[in-house]
Structures are given as structure tokens and as C-alpha cells.
């Protein structure tokens, strides 16, 4: 099979799996997850083959794998759909395939496959446990098959997005993921908070998507194409850059870039549309991992990276992007410090890290953004799956003690899990250090260091300083999390009885931990002391950089960003450990600042600024004034008037004319004719025959007369 055909096939297995599970295997849990994991495996296999083949191509940037077909006729041209795997696509495909496969595998364990059905579990609620021989144990998820169907569709959306060669198919995948995020965040739909979170995620991302669609439409109307390869030609980019858009003094390129970027802001939960992501924790943990690492938010960043040539055409847009990114990075990092929910900390850290990437793009650090996207995907997937594993272990303890009031997600209920869950601890530690940027060994260090180096090298000192502080906070809350969760001694009875999770959950952790460490090594800068000359090749920069026509220069090596990142990482970690090593309860936590804990009151702000006015407008303006006052009022006028007209018509036209004259009259006439014609129907076929012949002779004679004589 040619690589191009193979790429076409990569998104298909999850889609087929979705259909199969929904239509056929819904009743059978084992069959459903077999189908879903097989599909994920097939896509993974295809992705790996494509990736390996891509590595073998010389000058892959100039000769990417691409093929397209005509899809929709639009006037005299065709709307094309196609696939494109260039270096960026190949790298993204690599991590997407790996993380999706791992999350699929993890989901089997997470949803307690093999456990008995719950005593009083309901579809739409998390499993409550089952009683076996007097013990309460974990029970299997009631909607197990449905979950695999949804994440299969999710995976289909992501693969479609990654392999697409145009904004059109990218947007299709994008929207499929939007739907899936809604479905999966609200997976336990009987929980009001999950329902609300699903709606919130859907609505919030929709705001971004509308702008993105505007951007796509604008782009198409200007260039007549949506294909990346056609847009990113020198000629079109320059045209776009030179055409003024008439908005904010931006060029067309700038405006389109800005609109597309707003889509990303929604999808990747950047300020000010970040509010949905923490709430998305309501979904099952594999979904969180899916959203935070493998698919959804990565898709947002991927889209911006994709559109980078367009974005970089306008300096103002770049500034906005850099500002939003940097602000989000520090803003979310500070919130994360005050969160007690283990997943919530990670959620804000995701927002913060995405801010890093966006900021890197904003300052033109294309490769660094892509690099951080990939390393982050690995270690954030690892962290989420690890936190899921922790929660799972805690739930085990909760079932053991039977005290269901204990929140298994609250870090202050944990502590000392290091010994109970060693695999989870060590892999979580690796993930956490990677997130903090622990020097040299972790992937996070190399990618974050590259961003800082780029910011310093390109003289974006404000961004550099902001990101450095954000990185410090990152290291601090990460260590806080690790310390509270794993170190010290158990703070509750439940934590004492926590238990290591099954192999289906730990295996993905180990695999992802491997990547969280090693993936950084492909991007060691050439001029890095000691290690640089040893590796002597910044492979990642070289590979991904060639996606662009002008390969971005790697920043000059400088000691300042290196030392900065060393200091913030180690300092943050150390401080975190120092502050929290003896904390026994929430009250002893000095950082429970309500301002941070309540996320700068953004939800409340939105409540006041947007939601309440919307409700007020809906209630008073739309409902009471427009609907009841104007529309109903008009209708109330219409009613009597039409009633009058109707009765007039009835009395003076319908009854006398239509009913009596036309209706009854026609019936009378028909009756009269029928009565008088009835004798003709004698039931004697010979008479009919004679009559028909008479008619034939009369008609024939007339015709003959008309045609020949007249």
C-alpha cells in the first residue's frame, strides 16, 4: 500500500469501531472494548508505519505525503478533501497515536472491566460499587460500551484533524471532537454537575468555533482555497498580508489568523475562554486525559501551529497571541497553586502549559511550540492517567471503609500513597518532574528550556520573565501535588487502604513515562554544554523546522535562560517540598487564598457579566416584552380580526355559495344525472358493446368529417 493510501485509512478504524459498537456490540462489554482497542491499534499501526516511512524520506519538508480528491463541486471548481503528512503532521501523528492507544487501554481498567455489575448502579452515574461476599468492591461501568464508542469517535475526529490537508477537513474533525467532548464530559449525565460541565464546554468552545468558521470563510473568500499547501505559498501569503481587512487596521492575514486563533482560544482553553476546562474534570479520567493531552486541546495548539505561516504575517496578531499565551500561562499557574482537587490542579496546569505553547508561537518559536506540544501531551497524559490511578486506588480505600463522604479526589485526603501504589507513584513522579522541567533527564525540561531560550534569544524579555515565573509556579504546585499525594504519611483511613491498580492501567503509565523522559532527548539544542556536542544534532528542530519554507533558526545558546530554567524548576520543586512536607490538613495550607482558590472569580464574573444579563434579556426583553408583549399582542389583534373575517366569509360566502350552491348543488346535479343514467348500466355487456361502438362511430365520423371534408 502506498503511504498516501495508508494515511487515508488511518482515521477509519475508530469510525468503524464507533459504528460497530453502536449498532452491534453494544450489549457485549468485552467485544466492545476489543473492537475499540483493535481499531485504536490499527490506527496506531498505520500511524507508526507512516511515521517510520516519513523518517526515511530525504527533505521530507519539501516532499510530504499528500493526496487529495475532488469532493464537492463549487461552481466551476471543486472543493477538495485530502490528506497531508508533513514533518509537523508526522510528529503530531506519532504522539496522538501513542496517547490514544494508551488511553484506550487504560480505559479498560479504569472502568473496572471484569468486576461485577453494581448493586444499584444506574446508567448515567459513576459506578457505586458492588457487594461480593460482604465486601464492597469496585463495580463495572454501566455504560461501558457507550464509552468506547464515544472515545472511538473522538479518536476518529483527532486523526481526521491531524491527517487533513485543508482547513475544511480540519474543521470537520475539530467539530466532531467538540461533539465528543460534550458527550464525554457529560458522560455521567445523571450528575447535574457533569451535565452543566458538558454544556459549559460545548458552549464555550462554540464561541471560539464561530470565530474560527468566520476566519475559514474569510480565508476561502479571499484565496478560494482552504488547502494548507496552497495557502502557504509565498504568493498567497504575501497577497493576504498586503490586503487590508478594514478591522483594527489588521491585514487580511492578520484578521484571519486572529479569527482562527480565537477558535484555538476556545479549544485550547486560553484566557478568557479557559473556564470550561477545569469543569471538564467531571468526565471520566480517561476522557480528561484524552481532552488534555491527546486530542482536544492539542488540536487547538496544532491548528495554530499549522496556521503559523499565516499568523506570522501580521505583527499585531502575533503580539496578541504572545500576550494571551503568556498571560494564560501565569494566570492559570497561580490558580493551580490553590486547588485541592488532584485533577483540577492538573487542569490548570494544562491551561498554563498551553499558554506556554501559545506564547512560544506568539514570539515565533515555531519548533519550540511544537516540541512542547508533544512532550506536554506525553507527560500530561501520564499525569492524568496517574491521577486517575490514584483516584482509583483511593476509591478502593473508600469502598473498604465504607465512608462515602470522603472525596477520593481531594489531595488532603491522601498522603503516603508512595508505598501503596509504587508504579503509580514513580510514573507520576516522572510526569510531575517533566511538567516542572526537572533538568536534563525529563522531556519537559528540554521543551520548556527551548521556549525560554527562544524568548530570550528573540529579545522578548517580558514574555521571558512571565514564562519564567509561570514555570516557577508550575514546579511549585507540581511538587505540592506530589508531596500531598504520595509523600508523608496517610492523612485518612481511606488513604491507608488505597491499592495499586490493575495492569491495564499501569502499563499505559509505564509506556507514557518512558516517552515523558526520552522524548525530550530528540530536541537537545546543538550548542548545549556537554550534551549538545554529544548528541550533536538537534534532530527535532531539524525535522519539524523543515515544515516551513524558511526553516526557523535555532536560537543562539545563552546561559541566562538555561540558568533561569534550572533555578525556577529546582527552586519551585524544592519550595513545594519544603512547604508541604509537614502539612497535615487544609487549614495548615498557607496558599488557600480565596482569590486564587476561586480562580480569580472568573466564573462569577462571567455569571454577572454574561450569563445573568443573558438571563435577564431572555426573561424580560425576549420573553416578557417581545414574546408576550409584541408577538402575542399582534397575535391577539389578529385573532379577533380573523375571527370576524372568517365568520363573515362563512355566513355570506361559504354557507350560501359554496355549501348550498356548489356543494349541495353539484351533489344534486350528480344525483340527478346518476338517477337518469342508471338505466344505461344494465349489466348486459352486449349493450355496453353496442354503446361503445356507437361512440366510436360518432367520434370516428366526426373526425373523418373534420379531417377530410372540412
Amino acid at each position: 500500500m502506498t503511504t498516501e493510501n495508508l494515511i487515508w485509512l488511518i482515521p477509519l478504524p475508530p469510525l468503524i469501531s464507533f459504528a460497530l459498537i453502536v449498532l452491534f456490540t453494544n450489549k457485549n462489554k468485552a467485544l466492545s472494548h476489543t473492537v475499540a482497542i483493535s481499531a485504536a491499534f490499527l490506527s496506531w499501526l498505520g500511524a507508526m508505519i507512516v511515521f517510520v516511512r516519513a523518517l526515511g524520506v530525504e527533505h521530507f519538508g519539501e516532499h510530504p505525503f499528500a493526496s487529495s480528491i475532488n469532493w464537492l463541486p463549487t461552481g466551476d471548481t471543486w472543493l477538495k478533501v485530502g490528506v497531508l503528512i508533513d514533518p509537523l503532521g508526522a510528529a503530531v501523528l506519532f504522539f496522538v497515536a501513542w496517547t490514544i492507544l494508551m488511553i484506550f487501554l487504560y480505559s479498560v481498567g479504569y472502568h473496572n472491566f471484569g468486576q461485577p455489575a453494581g448493586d444499584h448502579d444506574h446508567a448515567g452515574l459513576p459506578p457505586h460499587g458492588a457487594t461480593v461476599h460482604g465486601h464492597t468492591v469496585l463495580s463495572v461501568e454501566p455504560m461501558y460500551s457507550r464509552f468506547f464508542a464515544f472515545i472511538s469517535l473522538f479518536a476518529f475526529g483527532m486523526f481526521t484533524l491531524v491527517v487533513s490537508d485543508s482547513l475544511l477537513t480540519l474543521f470537520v474533525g475539530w467539530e466532531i471532537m467538540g461533539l465528543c467532548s460534550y458527550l464525554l464530559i457529560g458522560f455521567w449525565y445523571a450528575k447535574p454537575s457533569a451535565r452543566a460541565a458538558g454544556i459549559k464546554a460545548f458552549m464555550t468552545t462554540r464561541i471560539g468555533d464561530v470565530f474560527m468558521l468566520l476566519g475559514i470563510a474569510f480565508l476561502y473568500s479571499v484565496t478560494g482555497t482552504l488547502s494548507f499547501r496552497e495557502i502557504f505559498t509565498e504568493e498567497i501569503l504575501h497577497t493576504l498580508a498586503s490586503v487590508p481587512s478594514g478591522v483594527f487596521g489588521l491585514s487580511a492575514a492578520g484578521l484571519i489568523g486572529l479569527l482562527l486563533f480565537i477558535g484555538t482560544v476556545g479549544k485550547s482553553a486560553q484566557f478568557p475562554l479557559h473556564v470550561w476546562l477545569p469543569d471538564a474534570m467531571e468526565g471520566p479520567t480517561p476522557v480528561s486525559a484524552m481532552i488534555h493531552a491527546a486530542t482536544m486541546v492539542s488540536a487547538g495548539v496544532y491548528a495554530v501551529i499549522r496556521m503559523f505561516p499565516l499568523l506570522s504575517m501580521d505583527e499585531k496578531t502575533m503580539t496578541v497571541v504572545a500576550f494571551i499565551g503568556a498571560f494564560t500561562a501565569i494566570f492559570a499557574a497561580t490558580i493551580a497553586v490553590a486547588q485541592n482537587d488532584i485533577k483540577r490542579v492538573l487542569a490548570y496546569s494544562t491551561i498554563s502549559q498551553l499558554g506556554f505553547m501559545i506564547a512560544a508561537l506568539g514570539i515565533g518559536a515555531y519548533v519550540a511550540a511544537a516540541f512542547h506540544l508533544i512532550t506536554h501531551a506525553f507527560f500530561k497524559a501520564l499525569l492524568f492517567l496517574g491521577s486517575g490511578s490514584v483516584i482509583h486506588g483511593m476509591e478502593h480505600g473508600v469502598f473498604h471503609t465504607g465512608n462515602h463522604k470522603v472525596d477520593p479526589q481531594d489531595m488532603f485526603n491522601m498522603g503516603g500513597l508512595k508505598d501503596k501504589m509504587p508504579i503509580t507513584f514513580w510514573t507520576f513522579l516522572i510526569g510531575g518532574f517533566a511538567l516542572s522541567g526537572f533538568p536534563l533527564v525529563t522531556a519537559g525540561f528540554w521543551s520548556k528550556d527551548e521556549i525560554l531560550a527562544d524568548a530570550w534569544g528573540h529579545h522578548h524579555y517580558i514574555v521571558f520573565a512571565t514564562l519564567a515565573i509561570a514555570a516557577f509556579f508550575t514546579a511549585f504546585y507540581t511538587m505540592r501535588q506530589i508531596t500531598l499525594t504520595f509523600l508523608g504519611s496517610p492523612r485518612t483511613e481511606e488513604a491507608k487502604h488505597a491499592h495499586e491498580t490493575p495492569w491495564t492501567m499501569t502499563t499505559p503509565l509505564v509506556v507514557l513515562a518512558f516517552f515523558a523522559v526520552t522524548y525530550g532527548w530528540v530536541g537537545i539544542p546543538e550548542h548545549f554544554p556537554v550534551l549538545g556536542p554529544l548528541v550533536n544534532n538537534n534532530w527535532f528542530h531539524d525535522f519539524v523546522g523543515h515544515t516551513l519554507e524558511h526553516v526557523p533558526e535555532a536560537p543562539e545558546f545563552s546561559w541566562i535562560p538555561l540558568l533561569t530554567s534550572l533555578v525556577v524548576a529546582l527552586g519551585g520543586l524544592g519550595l513545594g517540598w519544603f512547604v508541604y512536607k509537614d502539612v497535615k490538613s487544609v487549614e495548615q495550607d498557607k496558599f488557600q487564598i480565596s482569590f486564587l482558590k476561586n480562580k480569580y472569580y472568573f466564573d462569577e464574573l462571567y455569571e454577572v457579566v454574561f450569563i445573568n444579563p443573558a438571563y435577564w434579556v431572555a426573561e424580560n426583553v425576549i420573553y416578557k416584552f417581545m414574546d408576550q408583549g409584541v408577538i402575542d399582542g399582534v397575535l391577539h389583534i389578529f385573532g379577533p380580526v380573523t375571527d370576524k373575517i372568517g365568520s363573515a366569509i362563512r355566513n355570506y360566502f361559504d354557507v350560501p355559495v359554496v355549501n348550498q350552491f356548489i356543494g349541495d348543488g353539484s351533489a344534486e346535479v350528480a344525483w340527478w344525472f346518476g338517477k337518469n343514467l342508471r338505466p344505461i348500466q344494465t349489466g348486459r355487456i352486449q349493450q355496453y358493446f353496442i354503446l361503445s361502438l356507437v361512440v366510436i362511430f360518432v367520434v370516428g365520423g366526426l373526425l373523418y368529417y373534420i379531417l377530410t371534408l372540412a
Partner: protein
Amino acid sequence: MIPLSWYLTFAAALFSIGLFGALSRRNMVAILLGVELMLNAVNVNLVAFWRYGDVAQMAGQVFAIIVFAVAAAEVAVGLALVISVYRRHNTVIAEELDLMKW
């Protein structure tokens, strides 16, 4: 040599006789006899047109043969109906079988 018109006139006369039979006889079997005469008249026309047209083209005879088949089918079913009706109503007079009128 016989002119074509003779055959056609003969066929027309035979057809009219059959028509009279079909229109005027009371007995259903006799009506069918009249129908047979009409069919024969048609066949005479068909064969005559074959003879006076393109002899190599056998369409006239082919259609005459198909008329034979139709006639055979018509007689078989028609007479079966007549016998069936006779069993049920004990009559074969067409005028007495007017159950379906009005």
C-alpha cells in the same frame, strides 16, 4: 390473380358477421362463436398483408400464429367460465346474468 381488396372485403364481412353474433346472441357460447369469427377475420387480414407485402418478412404469419394462441386461450378460459357459470346459475343466457348491474 386475386386483388388484395377481395381478401380485405371478405375479412371485413366476416368480421361484421362475427360482430353481429357477438352483439346479438343470447347464449354465451354463441357469443364466443361470434368472437371466434372476428378473430378469424383478423387472421385473414394478417396473412393477406403478409402475402401482399414483403413475403420474406414473416410478421403477418407470426402474428396470425399468436392470434391462434390467444384464441385458444380465450376459448379455454371463456368456455371454462361458461361452464362454471352454468353450474352456479343453471343458465348460459347472457341477459339473465346481470347480478353486477347498479
